[in-house]
């Protein structure tokens, strides 16, 4: 289990800062984001809308739209090389091959006018030196792996002929065709019904066991994280506020934001005997816009433990126990 101590990270992000410029001027969507991904692990990046989790994912594949968006600072190391220094050709060789991505909306990420077969074999033919026939056979194998019934027939179909769950399976198959080292899944089950979500999550975990792919799971759903990830990174307003092993974070959160999020969830696992409703803990206020100027801790305006110091000084991201880090001055006072 001790992945961090005896293994080299496969992907390492250091002090990443991404800015967007719009009519209100420049703003940092993510600021000083650093984390490591180790082989074969599932790392969840969790946070509410606008916290920068998707921007982080897009940066890894250099998919930030320019000129509005720009990776201003930082380092993204994959197998010892800095992705930020890659030229276009190397990027093409990287995307979908070594690192691939699944998006939230499977309908908009598949081409509606090409058959499933064409879209899948294209990936293999582009990245690997194989014939169309070999590509087709490999594709069929992959479709079997993601449990598509009747894969041969599926190759001839168009995306609109498939249901949401099936399309997401296709996306997973496409992402895994070249046996990537890293799979980035951006809200892969958010658009799906809960019974289908369960199927897709099971599938992702099964495939990870088989192929040993490292997964970055981006989600807002703390329940999904609890059931699938090994480690978790909690983001708030463009920064990482807490990082650690899932069990550790859920049992012993050391940032008031994480603590508040976990408390505000209506949950079915602690129904009490007399059927009385426990009032949900509210977090006052809203997530600040990235354009607001801030001094001190970004969570201070909503924090129940806020002190004068928090409003002036930014808390450093530091270790509180083995592999558990938080950016909070008051972490010892969370109960």
């Amino acid at each position, binding site marked *: 289990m001790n992945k961090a101590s005896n293994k080299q990270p496969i992907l390492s992000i250091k002090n990443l800062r991404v800015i967007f410029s719009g009519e209100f001027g420049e703003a940092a969507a993510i600021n000083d984001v650093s984390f490591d991904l180790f082989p074969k692990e599932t790392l969840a990046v969790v946070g509410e809308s606008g916290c920068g989790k998707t921007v982080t994912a897009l940066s890894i594949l250099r998919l930030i739209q320019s000129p509005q968006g720009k990776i201003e600072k930082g380092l993204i190391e994959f197998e010892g090389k800095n992705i930020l220094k890659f030229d276009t050709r190397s990027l093409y060789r990287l995307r979908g091959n070594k690192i691939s991505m699944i998006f939230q909306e499977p309908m908009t990420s598949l081409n509606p006018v090409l058959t499933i077969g064409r879209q899948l074999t294209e990936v293999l033919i582009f990245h690997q030196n194989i014939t169309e026939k070999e590509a087709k056979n490999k594709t069929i194998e992959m479709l079997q792996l993601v449990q598509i019934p009747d894969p041969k027939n599926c190759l001839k179909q168009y995306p609109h002929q498939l249901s949401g769950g099936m399309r997401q399976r296709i996306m997973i198959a496409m992402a895994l065709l070249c046996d990537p080292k890293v799979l980035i899944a951006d809200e892969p089950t958010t658009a799906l*019904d*809960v019974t289908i*979500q*369960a199927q897709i999550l099971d599938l992702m975990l099964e495939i990870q066991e088989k192929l040993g792919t490292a997964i970055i799971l981006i989600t*807002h759903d703390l329940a999904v994280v609890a*059931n699938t990830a090994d480690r978790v990174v909690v983001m708030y307003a463009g920064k990482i506020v807490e990082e650690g092993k899932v069990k550790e974070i859920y049992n012993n959160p050391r940032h008031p934001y994480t603590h508040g999020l976990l408390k505000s969830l209506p*949950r079915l*696992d602690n129904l009490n005997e007399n059927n009385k409703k426990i009032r*949900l803990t509210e977090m006052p206020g809203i997530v600040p816009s990235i354009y607001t100027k801030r001094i001190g801790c970004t969570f201070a305006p909503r924090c129940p433990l806020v002190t004068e110091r928090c409003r002036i000084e930014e808390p450093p991201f530091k270790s509180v126990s083995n592999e558990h880090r938080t950016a909070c001055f008051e972490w010892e006072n969370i109960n």
Partner: protein
Amino acid sequence: MKNKLKPLLTVKDLYMHFPIRRGLFQKTVAHGHAVDGVSFDIASGETLGLVGESGCGKTTVGRIIVRLQEPTTGKVLLEGKNVFDFNKKKLKTFKRNVQIIFQDPYSSLNPRMTAGAIVSEPMIIHNTVPRNEINNEVKKLFDRVGLHSEQIDRYPHEFSGGQRQRLSIARALSLNPKLIVADEPVSALDVSIQAQVVNLLTDLQRDFQLSYIFISHDINVVGYISTRIAVMYLGQIMELAPRRKILTTPLHPYTESLLNSVPIPNPNIGYKRIKRLKGEVPSSINPPSGCPFHTRCPIAEKKCSIEKPILREIQNNHFVACHLR
């Protein structure tokens, strides 16, 4: 404990079939069975949760109740009177009593009206409050739902998602309704905001003796807020029981599988990778014969594909539509 008091609202044998038209002359080739025989009632001050996967008909039921849609057949009785027999005048009174909150707080508010105008419009149309007191009333409503009165002159785009949903709630409350149909009211909101709105709805219910029909796909939220829960599948109610019974001792195999699929935010429990539902919800255009769930049911027998089970009371106040329970 059956509702000895007269129910506030009764829904009886509701059917909603949409014609599917094809071809040059738009011939009706089939019917989509959005709602297929739904009946329930709801008491004053109660929250009935309607839960199910997309396409199960839960939203259509909600829209029929507030008369945004006419059902193919069936009745909706408000305090014993069929709302589809109402004339114009009675309908106006009905609309005062039954209000709806929509899922999307972005598209359900008129972007060209100020927040104050949105909340006061129902009171002007229904003439419930004298003109000179409307401003005062709007302020009170803003205060009640947790908005600042300085925000009265702002437009919807100046509000955040959670605030917009508060605005929708204020609009629904402005007529002092008895029943609010809340269609996925917190689904578009972030977790930390979701708790604020859920708590607000709970408080309002206590203060105004409101009844809610709470429609959602999120079993965690429905399980939290509801008094009773109706689980829907392909246009039918599969199980209807008090909240605790549904959550702890479900009797219908669909409810059981649904609950097993819900991830629990607790890493110590672990994802139960058992009793997963195979396959997907069949199309409502040609729903399966017999029990609509038999194609995915882990315990289905021959009978299930032939005969449609009716919703019957198996235990006190616990209704299940399954041959095998």
